[in-house]
């Protein structure tokens, strides 16, 4: 889309950074899609729709009749059509023709060029024969796959047309240069031909060689016209209405543009080739005409990301983690609740089985406890669900405590303490950041830092108040947080907005932005964006017109002599690791003539592997260095020869002798360099010849032995590393142990309940009339206890994880490579043999004129370089007198 837009001369600045729907696209899509959908509905409800006659489609019937009368076969091809909407439109036509062929007993041959389309076409043809009740006449060999190659397909088609003496040919679909070959083949055998294509460049060929030609959208309408199916008819009618809307828009636009040009007296634009403006333009030196004029302001100061944004980012990540943990616990609690409820029901149903008196009372009390547990859990889960509905899927940090707090007695206090610690600990870095931020900007104490202080104090008070219910705590925490956020949003946002607006107003032609997607690409979800995306895409010519440009970026610290880092491409991402001043040099090159401006770019030729080098364009005057390492199977002392023929001709057009590199050539000269000064097309040939040493299996095992020895040598390092890992994991496990112990309390308490149940059951089980029932009940009680114990480790690694990792220094693991070494035997030198080798590479070049301009800008990185949002500016020179685009 971007390329097409460029060719139409649209300014690049008007394009989106990626191919993506704009707001105009939303509106346009609705306008274009609504009429077809409405008319499809109307047609389905029985409204009769009229479609005008299309002579080409009427001729299909005539062509079928002709083939039947002559007793010769028909041919139908979809050309180069792949699986796309057009193909499905063609299937409707094919079904009609195949149905008629089946009914009249006429043979239909369907040559195919695409193997993906082949089964679809075959199935459609078969269905048409089946629908006509003549499936016995269907010959699968008449649906033929010829070749995916365009001209091989054309020659195959010609052969079939001549051999079978086709009476009628139907050419429907996408076609390219083979269209005339196909159409002329039918013409030569005197076939009646009907063609239909949306490939506009092929329409003239079909017009001259075929009897009837269906153009563009008529191909889509043909299926509807033939099948008379309401859905298709409605769609065709709806398309017409949509086209009418487009037509009206075009008319309004035309009138508007005309009026505007008359009002501005700029109506000469249409006569670009002989207007005064054009003449003045082409009188300029070519250098001035073509080059992009890119100027930067001297210094650009990048400020670190506003603290509140960074804070928000961290908050969002933390919230997501907490929400995930909260959901997990909710799920587990729901399971416990449902288990408790079912146990309670089970127990109550069998109360009479318990002996009357203490035993039955105990059982009833246990059932009550179970009921209390399930109700309490249900209540908390409902509350959590309501909260989730209000605030997305966030979970307050304290909500973990709230959920667990009163589920069983004795746990609430511990959990509240934990939640308080976590909440306060969680907000401490924010508090510090906000304080630093406020101090830096001289914000009053009433600012966000003070608000957060107040909020944290309130949190502490709330948690200190044992009488408060979980819901009260939750509500107050949420309120105070909302107040806190609102305060610093009110303070910070206007400042940020003002800064951005000021930056936008100055010169908004060139933008640098953080690459938000990089961290995703790196696959590290929690890592902050760390690279700047340098974007030179809005560079424009002196006329303000986008050109075919190549961009090269060179980045180095200001004033240093070190080699700059080079990046290529319209957009280049770079990470500034340290604070300081950097020089960023942007070189913009014009490659093609303006009439051919497109999206051609230089592709770096620095690969050592010639198989990666492809047909490419490069600018004149570029020094091309070619070399590559020998393949792995080559050994140094074997005679090998590399001949470079750069394809350039010397005096009197004679080819220059190839430059030869052998093993005796000094290493520095093995890289051959060549400079193409003259624009033109070249074919570079590289020939590698000689002998190659082929290693046998025993040589490979010798290599394995070497690898094993290396692994053995590295064992102490590995052991050390594993030890460190183990320590780290132990530390982590300790930290998580606190939370696990809380959950352990829950498990213990549930175990106690289970124990009580078990005691009741065991005490009286001897007296129970139904032993099987007693056993069943006991089994269920035991499973409840096991379930609770299992859930004691909801958070963190399972117990013993650290030991598992920590024991990595055991000799068994560290010496894993040793058995390999023991197996490896044999002498590698004896296991090689020589084999002839010869290979030739041809690389095609198109050398173009290169016009280049560059500019330098300075980047100031203040601090905290990990995430930057920068108003980055580029200034365009004043437009050339006489207008421009």
């Amino acid at each position: 889309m971007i390329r097409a837009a460029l060719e139409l001369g649209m300014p690049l600045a008007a394009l989106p950074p990626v191919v993506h729907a704009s707001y105009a696209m939303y509106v346009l899509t609705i306008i274009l899609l609504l009429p077809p959908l409405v008319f499809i509905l109307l047609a389905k409800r029985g409204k009769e729709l009229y479609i005008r006659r299309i002579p080409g489609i009427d001729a299909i019937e005539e062509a079928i009749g002709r083939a039947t009368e002559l007793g010769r076969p028909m041919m139908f091809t979809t050309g180069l059509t792949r699986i796309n909407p057009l193909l499905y439109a063609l299937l409707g036509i094919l079904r009609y023709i195949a149905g008629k062929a089946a009914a009249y007993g006429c043979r239909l041959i369907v040559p195919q060029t695409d193997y993906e389309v082949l089964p679809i076409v075959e199935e459609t043809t078969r269905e048409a024969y089946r629908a006509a009740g003549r499936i016995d006449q269907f010959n699968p060999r008449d649906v033929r796959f010829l070749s995916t190659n365009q001209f091989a397909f054309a020659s195959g088609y010609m052969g079939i047309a001549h051999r079978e003496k086709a009476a009628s040919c139907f050419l429907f679909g996408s076609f390219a240069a083979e269209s005339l070959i196909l159409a002329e083949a039918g013409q030569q055998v005197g076939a009646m031909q009907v063609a239909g294509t949306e490939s506009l460049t092929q329409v003239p060929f079909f017009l001259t060689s075929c009897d009837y030609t269906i153009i563009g959208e008529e191909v889509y309408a043909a299926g509807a016209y033939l099948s008379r199916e309401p859905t298709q008819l409605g769609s065709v009618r709806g398309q017409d209405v949509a086209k009418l809307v487009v037509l009206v828009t075009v008319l309004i636009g035309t009138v508007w543009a005309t009026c505007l040009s008359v009002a501005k007296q700029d109506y000469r634009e249409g006569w670009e080739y002989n207007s005064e403006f054009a003449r003045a333009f082409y009188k300029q030196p070519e250098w001035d005409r073509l080059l992009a004029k890119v100027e930067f302001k001297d210094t650009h100061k990048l400020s670190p990301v506003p603290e509140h944004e960074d804070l928000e980012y961290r908050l969002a990540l933390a919230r997501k983690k907490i929400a995930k943990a909260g959901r997990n616990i909710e799920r587990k609690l729901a399971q416990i609740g449902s288990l408790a409820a079912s146990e309670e029901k089970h127990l109550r149903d069998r109360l009479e089985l318990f002996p009357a008196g203490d035993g039955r009372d105990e059982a009833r009390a246990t059932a009550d406890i179970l009921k209390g547990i399930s109700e309490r859990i249900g209540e908390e889960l409902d509350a959590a669900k309501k909260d989730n509905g209000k605030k997305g899927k966030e979970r307050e940090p304290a909500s973990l405590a709230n959920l667990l707090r009163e589920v069983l007695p004795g746990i609430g206090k511990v959990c509240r303490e934990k939640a308080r610690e976590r909440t306060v600990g969680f907000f401490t870095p924010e508090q510090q950041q906000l304080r630093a931020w406020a101090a830096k900007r001289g914000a009053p104490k009433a600012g966000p830092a003070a608000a957060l202080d107040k909020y944290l104090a309130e949190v502490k008070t709330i948690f200190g108040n044992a009488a408060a219910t979980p819901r009260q705590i939750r509500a107050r925490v949420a309120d105070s947080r909302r107040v806190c956020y609102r305060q610093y949003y009110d303070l910070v946002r206007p400042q940020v907005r003002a800064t951005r607006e000021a930056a936008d107003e100055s010169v908004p032609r060139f933008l640098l932005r953080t690459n938000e997607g990089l961290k995703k690409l790196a696959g590290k979800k929690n890592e902050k964006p760390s690279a700047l995306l340098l974007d030179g895409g809005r560079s424009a010519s002196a006329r303000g017109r986008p050109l075919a440009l190549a961009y090269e970026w060179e980045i180095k610290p200001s004033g240093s002599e070190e080699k700059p880092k080079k990046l290529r491409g319209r957009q280049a991402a770079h990470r500034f690791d340290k604070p300081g001043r950097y020089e960023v040099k942007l070189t913009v090159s014009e490659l093609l003539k303006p009439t051919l401006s497109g999206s051609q770019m230089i592709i770096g030729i620095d690969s050592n592997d010639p198989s990666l080098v492809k047909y490419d364009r490069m600018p004149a005057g570029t020094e091309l260095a070619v070399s590559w390492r020998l393949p792995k199977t080559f050994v140094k002392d074997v005679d090998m020869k590399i001949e470079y023929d750069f394809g350039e001709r010397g005096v009197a057009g004679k080819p220059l002798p190839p430059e030869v590199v052998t093993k005796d050539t000094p290493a520095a000269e093995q890289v051959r360099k060549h400079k193409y000064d003259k624009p033109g097309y070249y074919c570079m040939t590289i020939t590698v010849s000689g002998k190659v040493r082929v290693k046998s299996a025993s040589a490979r095992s010798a290599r394995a032995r070497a690898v094993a020895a290396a692994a053995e040598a590295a064992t102490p390092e590995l052991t050390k590393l594993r030890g460190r890992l183990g320590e780290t994991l132990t530390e982590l496990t300790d930290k998580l142990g606190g939370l696990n112990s809380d959950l352990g309390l829950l498990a213990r308490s549930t175990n106690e309940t289970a124990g009580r149940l078990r005691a009741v059951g065991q005490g009286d089980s001897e007296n129970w009339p139904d032993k099987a029932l007693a056993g069943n009940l006991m089994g269920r009680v035991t499973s409840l206890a096991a379930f609770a114990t299992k859930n004691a480790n909801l958070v963190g690694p399972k117990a013993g994880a650290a030991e598992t990792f920590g024991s990595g220094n055991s000799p068994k693991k560290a010496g894993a490579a040793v058995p390999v070494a023991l197996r490896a035997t044999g002498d590698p030198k004896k296991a090689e043999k020589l084999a002839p080798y010869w290979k030739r590479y041809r690389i095609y070049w198109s050398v173009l004129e290169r016009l280049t301009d560059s500019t330098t800008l300075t980047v100031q990185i203040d601090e905290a370089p990990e995430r930057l949002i920068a108003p980055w500016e580029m200034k365009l020179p004043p437009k050339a007198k006489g207008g421009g685009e």
Partner: protein
Amino acid sequence: MRRRLIALITFLGGLYYFIEFFLPEHIIVGRADFQWNLFEREINLGIRVYGSMALGLGVINLLRIHGYAILRKRKGWPNSLALLVAMFVTMIVGFWGELGGNEAAKSCFWDFCFRGLMNNLGPAMFSLLAFYIASAAYRSFRIQNTEAGLMMIAALLVMLGQIPLGFFVWDQLPVIRNWMLSRISTPAFRGIIFGALIAGLAMAVRMWLSLDRTTSRRGA
């Protein structure tokens, strides 16, 4: 049931691309960005892999048609034999080169069969166009009615405006040619493109929502 399942899968597949194109570039979840097009590469790869399975069907089709011709000794069966032999030789050498790592064999075959044979046969076929264009032009330039006459005049002006001789005859011919191409031909082409695009869009929606019976197996 089966038809509904197909419609559901079609809808879900289309929905991904619809959302990917129409929703804002980044959907903010908290402050962590989520990009829909992250999965595009994997999905496209999957589609390609899925489509390449059909290649086997193409080979089966060739074997069925030409194997039948060879077995029944039909007219022209040596041609079918040559086709199948060429196909299998290409396949074997290809596998041998790739799996066996024999660079010499691979390179030799590549240079001989593809660069030496295929690359030349294609242009040879293409060159037929030169003769066909002449014969087609002869047929269409016969002035049989008013439309053909207009077409002849337009073609003459464009051809003369294109070549240096036309410029020597009258220096305004290139301007006329340019005017005809940019003011008559291009708008007409664009109009056709508009219509075809809208029709394609409507067709795509019909397929996406499975409104069209053409897309179902037992349609019509």
